[in-house]
């Protein structure tokens, strides 16, 4: 469980705080999507939780561990972080060497690394690429390696800071599918900062950030259904929702809750079958 209480944070070179008295609780095993315009403080919040910025005292606790200088090592044990740029987090010369990097830092003996690397690569579907060099991989593949690098360390929390924003649609979809599988297979808490409506729809909860505060905390269906809110934070509604709204506009009684593309297709097929 992550508890953020009354968190205010200001960068030294700015004259206004990015986060202003923000409070948030993320239960274990939840997938939380964090959305908001650029500069709303999403990335800052994620970095503060992971202890990558000097966190104000007594404001964040991760699994009852206060986030501060003294607990950094223990904190990095619990939290895996995947960044936006696929190139700038690839440390190793090959895929397996990159996944091994975190294990080397943890002083895992070489013999014990092998099964963990293998498992992490299998989880993201990159086993066949283990001897590849970064230049031989696409952006999406590099991000999957980054996720594997985090998973190999067996974290309880995985933070994705716009991890899919630099990927092409196909790469993004593969990464998200893998994440969903991993999330379902183990009680991994996921915090994903994103602008992608599909990624938002995958989450259990959505936190909408605006001007350093939480504007709304609700399920994806509620947030994505709120046209005004969606526009305000610069999101785009997922395709299935746009289609649903159009159908409703023409008088087709589509259910109000959020449906994924697949679910909407199912619903339409059922309707067509009963009509015929």
């Amino acid at each position: 469980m992550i508890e953020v209480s009354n968190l205010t944070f200001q960068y030294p070179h700015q004259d206004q705080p990015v986060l202003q008295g923000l409070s948030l609780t993320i239960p274990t095993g939840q997938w939380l999507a964090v959305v908001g315009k650029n500069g709303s403080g999403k990335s800052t919040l994620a970095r503060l939780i992971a202890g990558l910025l000097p966190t104000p005292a007594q404001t964040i606790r991760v699994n009852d561990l206060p986030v501060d200088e003294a607990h950094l090592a223990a904190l990095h044990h619990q939290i895996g972080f995947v960044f936006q740029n696929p190139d700038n987090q690839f440390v190793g010369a090959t895929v397996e060497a990159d996944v091994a990097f975190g294990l080397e830092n943890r002083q895992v003996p070489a013999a014990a690394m092998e099964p963990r690397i293998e498992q992490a690569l299998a989880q993201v579907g990159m086993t066949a690429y283990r001897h590849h060099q970064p230049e031989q991989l696409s952006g999406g593949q590099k991000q999957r390696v980054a996720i594997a690098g985090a998973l190999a360390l067996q974290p309880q929390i995985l933070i994705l800071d716009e991890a899919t924003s630099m990927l092409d649609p196909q790469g993004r979809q593969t990464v998200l599918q893998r994440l969903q599988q991993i999330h379902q297979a183990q009680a991994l808490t996921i915090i994903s900062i994103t602008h992608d409506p599909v990624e938002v729809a995958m989450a259990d909860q959505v936190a909408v950030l605006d001007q350093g505060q939480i504007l709304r905390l609700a399920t994806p269906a509620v947030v994505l259904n709120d046209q005004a809110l969606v526009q305000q934070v610069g999101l785009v509604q997922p395709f299935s929702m746009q289609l649903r709204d159009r159908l409703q506009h023409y008088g087709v009684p589509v259910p109000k809750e959020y449906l994924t593309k697949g679910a909407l297709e199912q619903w339409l097929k059922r309707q067509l079958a009963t009509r015929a």
Partner: protein
Amino acid sequence: MNNKVLFGMYLPGNSLMHRLDPRLKLVGCFWFVILVFFARTWWTNLLLIGALGLVIWLSQVKFSKYWAGIRPLMWIILFTAVIQALFSSGGQVYWHWGWLAVTSAGVAQAGFLVLRFFLIITSSTVVTVTTTPLQLADALEALMKPLKYLRVPVSQLAMMVSIALRFVPTIMDEVGLIMNAQRARGMDFSSGSLFTRAKRLVPVMIPLFVAAFKRAEELAVAMEARGYDPNQARTKFRQLHWQRHDTWGTVVWGLLTVALVALRFVK
């Protein structure tokens, strides 16, 4: 890819030389260079040529490729040899002009000089052609380990080297990208004098440096997030394993040394 071996370029392969322990290759090469300076007679040099021939043969890389790698350096070697020939004295005088003279001793010394250059450059090329830069970095780290006791930050240096090697292709891509961006703005990199061309590279270098610093910062944060602490001990995933052929390699090099010493002193 061009099939020319530039001085130091790795060629993938699975020959015995490729499989040898990089530590042995590095030390062996260093030792060979010492032996080269130790060899002063025709017989000893012949022995070294033979040894070099053996490793070239074992590397299963064609000699013509090595030759293509040495050729660009040939002018410097020849120039040095000519200077050597003109300025040394002794033996029979073939030709002289003022204080410049070509003597038999000078020609012999120049000949040895060319041979030495050839032996040193080729033997180190054998190492770099059969060893990936990363393996070399690993070997260097392993060999420098004793320096840790002198407070030399060996593992940090090794991490720097391997990150530098990892980012060479990435930065090269970036150079291409920036050059294309500048070309799209009407920049012409291929005409003008050497000075103008160099000056035109400034708008490439500046964004490149800015990007490299940004990259470095992001990489540093990413490494920290994955628990990297430069002052902490780390385990190693890539282990170097000493194998039987490495022992054999050492034995062969030892015998070479003995033979060389014998040839030099027996006469």
